[in-house]
């Protein structure tokens, strides 16, 4: 899984990147299953590996599938990332060990859910009880977020259909600059691809 992540960072072909990110999600789902989180595993497999991949492929079909080559590795970014990673690893030294029953996270409200949810809510799946009942407002908020995101996507993409907006002229002007000749907007993209592939 870690190897997939690093491969993702290095790859140039965006189509391959998206396929790999689907594989990455699937690995994550398998990992959740190993750690007893069955509900999370199938949500990740369906939503993370499925819907995300479809969304990204849709974006790709509307943009381009080749990343421009940047040879230089940013040393500042690398140092920042390594430093942050080092500090975080130092921070884990005091964490409870993996699978520890006495860890603080396993001592508080979780036990109450496990003992009482069968009487108080009903379903044998504790995750369902907590999601729908004890933390129902969280789920309501989540639905609100998803709704807002859907509205946002429609507003943003919907405006793209409008041919007369100022942005599209800017893109057209740029294509004309590159080709040194005025072209019709619908031809521009195709010629651009030919120019970049040759």
């Amino acid at each position: 899984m870690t190897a997939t992540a690093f491969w993702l960072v290095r790859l140039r072909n965006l189509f391959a990147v998206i396929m790999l990110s689907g594989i990455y999600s699937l690995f994550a789902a398998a990992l959740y299953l190993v750690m007893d989180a069955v509900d999370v595993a199938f949500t990740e497999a369906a939503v993370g590996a499925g819907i995300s991949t479809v969304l990204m492929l849709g974006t790709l079909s509307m943009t381009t599938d080749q990343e421009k080559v940047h040879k230089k590795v940013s040393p500042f970014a690398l140092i920042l990332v390594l430093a942050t990673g080092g500090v975080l690893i130092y921070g884990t030294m005091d964490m409870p060990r993996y699978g520890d029953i006495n860890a603080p996270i396993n001592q508080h409200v979780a036990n109450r859910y496990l003992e009482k949810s069968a009487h108080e809510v009903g379903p044998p799946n504790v995750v369902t009880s907590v999601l729908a009942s004890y933390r129902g407002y969280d789920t309501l908020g989540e639905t609100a977020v998803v709704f807002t995101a859907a509205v946002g996507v429609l507003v943003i993409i919907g405006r793209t259909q409008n041919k007369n907006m100022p942005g599209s002229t800017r893109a057209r002007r740029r294509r004309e600059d590159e080709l040194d000749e005025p072209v019709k907007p619908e031809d521009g993209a195709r010629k651009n691809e030919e120019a970049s592939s040759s």
Partner: protein
Amino acid sequence: MFDWNDASSLLGLLNYWVAIVLMMAGFYTVIAQHNLIKKVVGLNIFQVAVFVFYISMGKVSGGSAPILKDGIELYSNPLPHVLILTAIVVGVATTALALALVVRINHSFGTIEEDEIQTIEHDEEDIA
């Protein structure tokens, strides 16, 4: 077998380290790559790293999945599962929004490379 609970052993921290390495891979992608789609993918890597971190904290050794059944005494902690379930769905919603923005940017600027977009904006400021 390894004793995961042995406080002197660093092996029990391996799950956090995997999460941190993944998180840093995502972080690097977000700050160092110029391609906007790649940045969104990096954000997803980062996100999954946080999920792995949470789920691994909720695991109890010897426990089973938190579905109540007679004869099973020990369950893993259901609370992180619930939180991450919510987070996955919200994460996909935000990814969708980010990708919509990328499509819109591509439509306006004709490119999804960050440095090219900055050059174009800079040129336009000069003209104006």
